[in-house]
């Protein structure tokens, strides 16, 4: 079943050779730390991933795994201080965005890469109408007249299937329901036709029926516009529904990257395996939930060696000493576990 999907993938992961590689967006060995009163929290410790046009990459992780900080760094909206980029590159069309001028980055934001957030109510400005906030981009970035901008904005609201778009143009965010607000934010992020869309937990605050509507909408818009989509989430269900490829993050590292079918069928990292075993499934009865023992590590004090070793059921002495690199495993996947082969080939 998985071979079909495998064949259409190009070789994964930038391994340092031959850049620029022609990829749309690449994060390469990114390192970010937060300098806080209590010490230095190493939030991102060498994250590498990429997304191509028309592809959906899901970045999966629990809170504190660094998935949102990576996205903020890509967008250039990381709070500095306390956050500092200490290494690595974020390349858009092969050009490193971290060394660009503020003006150059600004041009990419919105037109090149756009982002939607979890909580639409706090992401939208409460004192301006939804219409104004969308039209603003057309006026400032495209130099359109007020009336043209309004016309385009109404088209955008229509695109995201907001009923009575014309009438809603002058509504304020608080007059919208949760699902509507999320739609309005999607309209806003797509206004300048970006090549990459980063969606940070876009449906976490929504009810299941509305979640299904929003995920449908995102998938449809992505298909039409051939956008690269980075979906940041903790929900293994949503990921299984929409992703092409998955990167699993833990303690600021990518611990596994694989095609969606491969990952669910044969996870290559004990953490991924643990996650899959610990979620209740709606289509299973009398299921035994096998938990991952312990807690995610404090980023102020990441365990030596493999950061997952204190919680790992397969831990060996080597895990406490050596950080396992993210190594290729077969053609299309990679895992950062010393015993990745054993995990995949377990019975």
């Amino acid at each position, binding site marked *: *079943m998985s071979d079909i999907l495998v064949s259409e993938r190009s070789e994964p992961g930038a391994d340092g050779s031959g850049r620029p590689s022609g990829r749309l967006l690449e994060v390469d060995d990114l390192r970010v730390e937060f300098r806080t009163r209590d010490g230095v929290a190493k939030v991102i410790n060498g994250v590498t991933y990429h997304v191509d046009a028309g592809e959906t990459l899901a970045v999966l992780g*629990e*809170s504190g795994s660094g998935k949102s900080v990576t996205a903020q760094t890509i967008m250039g909206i990381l709070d500095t201080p306390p956050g500092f980029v200490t290494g690595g590159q974020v390349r858009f069309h092969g050009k490193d965005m971290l060394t660009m001028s503020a003006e150059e980055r600004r041009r990419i934001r919105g037109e090149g890469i756009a982002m939607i957030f979890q909580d639409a109510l706090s992401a939208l400005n409460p004192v301006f109408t939804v219409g104004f906030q969308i039209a603003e981009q057309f006026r400032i970035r495209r130099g359109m007249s007020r009336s043209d901008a309004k016309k385009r904005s109404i088209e955008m609201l229509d695109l995201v299937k907001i*009923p009575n778009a014309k009438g809603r143009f002058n509504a304020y965010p608080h007059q919208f*329901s*949760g*699902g*509507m607000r999320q739609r309005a934010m999607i309209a806003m992020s797509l206004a300048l036709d970006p090549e990459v869309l980063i969606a940070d937990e876009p449906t976490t605050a929504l*009810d*299941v*029926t*509305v*979640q*299904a*509507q929003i995920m*449908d909408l995102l998938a449809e818009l992505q298909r039409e516009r051939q956008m690269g989509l980075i979906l940041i989430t*903790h*929900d*293994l*269900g*949503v*990921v*299984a*529904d929409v*992703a092409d490829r998955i990167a699993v993050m833990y303690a600021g590292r990518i611990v596994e990257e694989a095609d*969606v*079918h491969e990952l*669910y*069928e044969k996870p290559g990292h004990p953490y991924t395996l*643990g*996650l*899959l075993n*610990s*979620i*209740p*499934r*709606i*289509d*299973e*009865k*009398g*299921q*035994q*939930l*096998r*938990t*991952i*023992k312990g*807690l*995610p590590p404090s980023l102020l004090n990441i365990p030596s060696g493999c950061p997952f070793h204190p919680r790992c059921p397969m831990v060996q002495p080597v895990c406490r000493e050596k950080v396992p690199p993210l190594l290729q495993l077969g053609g299309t996947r990679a895992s950062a576990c010393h015993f990745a082969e054993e995990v995949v080939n377990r019975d």
Partner: protein
Amino acid sequence: MTENILEVRDLVKHYPVTRGIVFKKTIGHVKAVDGVSFGLRQGETLGVVGESGCGKSTLARVLMNLEKPTAGSVLYKGQDIARLKGGELRRLRRQIQLVMQDPYTSLNPRMTVGDLIGEPFDIHPEVAPKASRRGKVQELLELVGLNPEHINRYPHQFSGGQRQRIGIARALALRPEIIVCDEPVSALDVSIQAQVMNLLEQLQGEFGLSYVFIAHDLSVVRHLSERVAVMYLGKIAEIGTEDEIYERPTHPYTQALLSAVPVPDPKVREQKAIIRLTGDVPSPVDPPSGCRFRTRCWKAQDVCATEPPVLEIRPGSDHPSACHFAEKREIVVTHEA
């Protein structure tokens, strides 16, 4: 069949909507819970699912006697809890306890864990004499999987999952018969959720607890509940055993809800047909006439607008459903684990 330890009859809770400051005028009511009946049996878990605004948290508040019902009654072993006063009420409160959703705001940050879990003993001194309280608290900590030596720590020194365990220990302190859990795992990370769910199951077995388990996550509810009630806009749409609701749902709302739950398995995505509901949940201030779901229902007929469907067993189904056109439909393909 054991008898019901808790019985809810035609429960109604309306909140007035007022206008004006000095001369307040009631201009309407938020019909948060609008005629809900069910029974909770000894030792069972009754799951209550529904989307935000369906009244499930208001239901929890009324069950806890934190709100007086507008109409209807909640009977604990035959006693109407809203009528109890003084000592009787205090004795009742020992028997029904609550675990709240947000482990960050439900614990007083200025109190140590020992004080938090021991506070119920201050209010009900007959449960544990002063001298034995510290020991009792440590026992409780151990019971929920926390280190008893951490008794002098403050909530901020614990993670979210550990705080939820503190909340559970506090609810258990008085050895209640019923625990109302209002979204107890929805604020927790995936790997921690399972730990807390397993803990709740284990405690139920140990103490014979009855749970009212309120949640929006249908997978979590299925995993923990023996019976499930599906709520929509203040009313129960369908109620039945876990099998009846998940394998043979008859109410269109339940069917739509179940079909929208993402299954963590990419193989399922091609096979799955999501029933797409259009629009949003109507306002509980002014719910639709007749069947409340009719504005989003694909089966709606004229009768749905005029006649509110009764929650009853209809031919061709084995459990009560509040739909004029209740009909079995398989949504989730279940396999035994």
